[in-house]
């Protein structure tokens, strides 16, 4: 099998004079052989999304939100008061919806998370361990839009309650690797106008903002933990 595979990869050019072969194979040591470039690792490649449990619950009508589409701006009508909702059940489900990219799931998940964080207060802190996996999965999709939304949600999460920032510190190992990967993803367009800056869609800038927010609200251990996962990050508080 292995031999057959390698012979398939050998291709002749110019009437059999030049041969293209994979690197580190026996053929690559022959004369008149052109060694192929290594394949792409796909560090920035977008991953295919799977159907989320948020979508399942939404379509089943399990969320206490009115499923209406009117012209009344970007608001969700809640059927029950947010104070009476079980945060341990609903908040992780809405966070799971951050992986969605299509309307209406994407809108309801984003706006639902926003409302729950804005009005949750100290009830959010005890739910944070359950939010880590949805955040990690959303970031790992490497989808531009999903990353932007998740970073904004992270920024909101750390200011939503007094101890939320500190409660996130033990989970930096799960969240920050993707931020380290995309930290330098910025546009270099000379003196042209990057409209993504105005719309807060520039991933490099958003990551910098997020890391600064994590450090500011994460207590005294935050910086060293961030630095461990994102070595190029420089403190915005200590200097």
């Amino acid at each position, binding site marked *: 099998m292995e031999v057959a595979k390698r012979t398939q990869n050998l291709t002749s050019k110019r009437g059999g004079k030049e041969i293209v072969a994979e690197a580190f194979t026996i053929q690559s040591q022959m004369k008149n052989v052109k060694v192929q470039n290594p394949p792409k690792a796909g560090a920035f490649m977008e991953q295919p999304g799977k159907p989320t449990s948020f979508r399942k619950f939404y379509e089943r009508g399990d969320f206490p939100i009115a499923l209406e589409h009117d012209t009344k*701006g970007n608001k969700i*009508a*809640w*059927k029950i008061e947010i104070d009476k909702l079980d945060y341990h059940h609903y908040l992780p489900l809405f966070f799971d919806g951050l992986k969605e990219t299509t309307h209406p799931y994407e809108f309801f998940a984003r706006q639902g998370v926003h409302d729950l964080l804005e*009005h949750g207060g100290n009830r959010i802190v005890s739910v944070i361990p359950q939010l880590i996996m949805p955040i990690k999965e959303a970031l790992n999709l490497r989808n531009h839009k999903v990353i932007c939304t998740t970073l904004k949600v992270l920024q909101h999460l750390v200011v939503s309650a007094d101890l939320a920032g500190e409660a996130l510190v033990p989970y930096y190992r799960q969240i920050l690797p993707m931020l380290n990967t995309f930290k330098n993803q910025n546009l270099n367009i000379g003196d042209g106008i990057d409209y993504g800056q105005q719309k807060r869609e520039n991933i490099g800038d958003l990551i910098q903002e997020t890391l600064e927010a994590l450090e500011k609200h994460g207590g005294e251990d935050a910086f060293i933990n961030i630095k461990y996962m994102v070595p190029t990050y420089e403190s915005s508080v200590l200097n």
Partner: protein
Amino acid sequence: MQTSGGQDHLCINPEIYCKKIQGTSVRSNSSVLPQRKYQRHLSIAMATSLGARKPTSIQRPKRWSEEVEEAYRLQLAGYRDALEYHSVKGEIDRWPKSGYIKKLQRKDGNYYYYNRSRECADKDVNKIKLYGY
């Protein structure tokens, strides 16, 4: 005319209360009701009477202000202004520091939640109606 403040509000006739505040009969009634409770009844009763009244003027704002923000939040939920909300649903839930509206119940019973900070964008300012009485 109905208020949602509680059962004891239902027996109050707002017109009588409005007249009482101008006349001398307030003192005689205040001995029956505690002062604070009476004032609460009075404010709701006045709001109810104003809520039932129709506005006499309407204005389109040119710039954002706190008054515009208040009207924006109320009109997003389907109410004309705070007086109408008082007459239909009662007290408004507000943010502690800024005093902006925090939560409103729509006429169909669903809830709208609002941010701590400004929500009315500049592009929406001219869509707001400010009513005068």
